């Protein structure tokens, strides 16, 4: 028990911070309330610190937590300045201009930060999950606050629309993967992931995986597709990203996606990349499922992004596409397990998550930093036109981030993609690599449009934008853009860490304490 406690210290710290934030947020004093952001940042820093020492836990991916939680903390820290002022912006502005006085009841700043931290807590818990129940709870803890954050992120109807779509479809997705979990449990008789893995192993050695188990896995994975916004569960993504405030969209592009991928990796780890003719891939049904989903996701995301005029929608669909890319890494699996990055798809996915998270913050931060005259954040591509003339640093940030997302060497995103490339090739997934390459090219259509609009084109005359009132967001944008470049200097370290994190403890049949017979419902009842 204490072992597990040691594992979750970051979550505990975050939880404590959350509580503190909520309490501080009750203060009647505006200045005290403004501390919430700083406290959250402090909490995140401590959580990162606490994440690092955790060296080795049990389970299928015994070393995943330090990297994952560190990554979550870092990206969380970058998201924090972006989220600043999301809900209280109007109120603050009113107070500053003297039109209103501070009213404790009208401000929900603290709650907003708290939800954010809760969500991150859930995300970290996902990373340390070693049990289906835990996984389920962690995923829900990740998602539930985001539903609220989306809904209240702006005062317009769009956010509410986004909220309703997100919540209801999210609930549908949750129900689906829960049902999948149930079936997995049914097939293996345990909720412990390592034991599940052992049971699956035993089944496969005994002559084939249990149908219900495979079905459960499939259903669970499909349900999790909602979290990562993969086809066919991607429908909500664009609407929700567009409806939510940019900061929240940025968070949506990272937090649920990371949770989803962690969960998918764990589920795939439970069944193991030890099947197929050469014993190095997922079981055929799961493999085909993920293959189809990955290819469809890449194409759908990229294709849909082309026609958009809203930058947020473009980024939403690109986020869909990026999920597709990462699924390639999942399909490729952990490779030979020689501690190398290039043939390790899981490491590639973990690394990609980081690069994507870091880069993505920047794009949304640029949008969040620009305001239309009616107070809304920039959204349409016309709004960022001519940015180079008025705010060159934002334009530069946009350019760098977008190019990194495109995978333009030598930016961070490129190396993320190369990891996926190499691992997929090592796994023999040449067609997927081609699909991935083609899609990178299709993606250039819309990334170029964004880059061109921001960096090269003159401003539209009838479109007016001005700098947003919150300087932290500009900071977030610049921070993200510089990270795209500066992280290259430590890329080797990050890659090594991701390799360590992806260390897959392949199950053996003997691990399970209670060897269960294969559950076979298909056997005829005579």
């Amino acid at each position: 028990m204490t072992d597990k406690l040691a594992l979750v210290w970051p979550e505990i710290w975050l939880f404590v911070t959350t509580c503190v934030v909520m309490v501080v947020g009750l203060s009647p004093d505006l200045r005290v309330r403004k501390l919430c952001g700083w406290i959250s940042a402090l909490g995140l820093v401590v959580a990162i610190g606490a994440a690092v020492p955790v060296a080795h836990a049990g389970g299928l991916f015994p070393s995943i937590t330090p990297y994952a939680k560190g990554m979550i903390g870092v990206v969380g820290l970058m998201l924090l300045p972006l989220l600043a002022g999301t809900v209280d912006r109007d109120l603050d502005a009113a107070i500053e201009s003297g039109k209103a006085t501070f009213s404790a009841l009208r401000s929900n700043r603290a709650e907003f930060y708290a939800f954010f931290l809760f969500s991150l807590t859930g995300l970290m818990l996902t990373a340390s999950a070693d049990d289906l129940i835990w996984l389920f709870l962690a995923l829900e803890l990740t998602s539930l606050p985001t539903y609220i954050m989306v809904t209240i992120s702006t005062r317009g109807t769009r956010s509410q629309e986004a909220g309703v779509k997100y919540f209801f479809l999210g609930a549908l997705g949750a129900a689906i993967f829960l049902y999948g979990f149930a079936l997995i449990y049914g097939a293996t008789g345990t909720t412990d992931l390592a034991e599940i893995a052992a049971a699956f192993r035993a089944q496969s050695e005994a002559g084939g995986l249990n149908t219900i188990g495979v079905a459960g896995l499939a259903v669970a994975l499909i349900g999790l597709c909602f979290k990562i916004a993969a086809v066919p569960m991607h429908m909500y993504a664009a609407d929700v990203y567009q409806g939510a405030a940019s900061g929240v969209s940025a968070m949506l592009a990272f937090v649920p996606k990371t949770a989803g991928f962690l969960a998918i990796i764990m589920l795939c780890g439970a069944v193991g990349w030890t099947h197929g003719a050469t014993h190095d891939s997922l079981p055929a049904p799961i493999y085909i499922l993920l293959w189809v989903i990955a290819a469809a996701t890449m194409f759908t995301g990229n294709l849909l992004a082309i026609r958009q005029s809203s930058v947020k929608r473009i980024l939403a669909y690109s986020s869909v596409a990026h999920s597709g890319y990462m699924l390639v890494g999942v399909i490729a699996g952990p490779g030979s397990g020689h501690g190398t990055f290039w043939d390790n798809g899981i490491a590639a996915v973990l690394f990609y998550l980081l690069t994507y998270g870091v880069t993505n913050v920047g794009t949304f931060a640029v949008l969040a930093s620009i305001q239309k005259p009616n107070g809304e954040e920039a959204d349409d591509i016309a709004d960022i036109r001519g940015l180079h003339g008025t705010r060159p640093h934002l334009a530069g940030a946009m350019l760098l981030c977008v190019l990194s997302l495109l995978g333009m060497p030598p930016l961070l995103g490129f190396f993320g993609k190369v990891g996926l490339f190499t691992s997929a090739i090592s796994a023999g997934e040449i067609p997927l690599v081609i699909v991935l390459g083609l899609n990178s090219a299709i993606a250039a259509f819309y990334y170029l449009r964004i880059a061109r609009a921001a960096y090269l084109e003159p401003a539209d005359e009838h479109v007016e934008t001005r700098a947003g009132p919150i300087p932290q967001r500009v900071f977030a944008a610049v921070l993200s853009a510089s990270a795209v470049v500066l992280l290259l200097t430590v890329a080797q370290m990050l890659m090594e860490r991701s390799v360590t994190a992806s260390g897959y403890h392949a199950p053996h049949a003997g691990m399970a304490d209670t060897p269960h017979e294969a559950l076979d419902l298909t056997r005829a009842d005579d």
Partner: protein
Amino acid sequence: MLVLLILLPLLFGVAVLLRPPAAAKWWALGGTSLCLAIGAMLVGRFFANASPDVPFQAQGSFAWLPALGLNLSVGIDSVATLLIGLTLLLGPICVGASWTAIPQHRARLFYGWLLVLQAAMVGVFAARDLLVFYTCFEFTLLPMFVMINEFGSTNRHKAATKFFLYTFTGSIIALAGLVYTAWAVGTRATGVDGFTLDIATLTEHASHVLTAREQALVLLAMLCGFAVKVPLFPFHTWLPLAHTEAPTAGSVILAGVLLKLGTYAMYRFVLPLVPHAVLEHAPAVAILAIIGIIYAGLICWVQTDVKKLVAYSSVSHLGFCVLGLFALNSAGVTGSVLYMLNHGLSTGALFLLVGFMYERYHTRDMREIGGLGAKMPIWSTFMVFFVMSSVGLPGLNGFPSEFLCTMGAFISHTGWTSGAARHVGATWGPLGPWFGFAAGTGVIVAAIYLLAMVAKMVWGTLREPAVHHGEHDHHAGGPHLPVDLTAREIMTLLPIGVLCIVFGLFPTQTLIGAIESDVNAQVAFVHERSGEAPTEHEAHFAQQEHRQQRDAGRDEQIAGVKP
């Protein structure tokens, strides 16, 4: 020194961004000139120390991402050195050519990217690591995109987008092929520990570990990228558009260096990595090249846009370059390398001339403008001179390259070298006299379209556009230019002209001698390796063995650590 050549332009690029716009062109000129000076030293030092035993000089390496097998490693052989020299030479020339064409308020953007572009181009030639190569290869797209998109003419957005997307798509697929090769080497080659992107290692092992089928696929993938870049028929359609729309300096660089990235990549990767497949499929590639030579040449003939004409002529000319490469013999490959340089000079100069004309008349339509011989005698003289160089007139630089490419194709025929009637002047190879003949007809076509262009542009009675569309947004308010070329413009052309003559009369002393040993080694290497590719079974076995060895090594390591 190489790294300096990559970093300096970047530094100057930053300087351009930070200094006031009025100073931009001076900084750019200073940067490119400084690089040219350093480059001259580099080239000089390279050839002073050249020896067949040390093909690569100025090597430097920095282990950056060992996890991806990525070292920042550079090094140059003679071919790369010459191409770097060409790149650096075109630097100041491009700045000079843009002196008045680029309005001051946008100068920072232009010159900044120009410098970045130069760094990237040098990087491509200097790279000794696959990812460094690829990085620079791709990164040339962006500056070019900006230059076309921002400083081009009417249709520039479409041109820029097409240029970027087309070449980007191709090169990603090429990357897949290259990475596949790296993977195969990393998992099968004996003596290679893990994944590596080191070009030397890959070259050494790739042909031993890739099966025939794999080689064919990798060849296909690489061609997807490089053939688009070259461009080889039928992947050429982006080029006329991009050239037509690009600003003068953009066209010069595009024709002068960027297209050579494709052929250089073929020389550096396609030939040595997959020799078996190259030998097998060379006729197909050569046929494409020949179609390109004649087809694009004929298209040139009926162009009305002079810049488009020169652009299509690039397609035609680069056909020779590819043909020479795939002749797989010294004559052809030498000719091809020479072609890379000489085409850069002469076509670059033609683009400069067209640009100077455009700056004065704001039209490129040969129905509107022509007969400039009387009005612009200096311009016309240069025009005729460079057209002759482009036509392949002996004594000028175009001829040795064109001749050697044709000769390479002609003598590259296995039937020549075997059997009773052995022909000593022929070499082993996949093409044959008919290829040489077909390419030779391209020379006729080249004469037709280039002289037709001269006939329209230079000779005849003077035709000028009725109304100067001087109200072109980029040029409004620009300084008024005299009728004929200014001293600055002449200074951009003169060095190229001098080189054309020098390379035409002394090709052996300047170029062929320089690259001879490297090219011969490359050809011998391809010859030696093209014979047999491992079978599927052998490849599989090699992979198994490699894995076992690595496992054993790891176990030993663990065993070594544990006690």
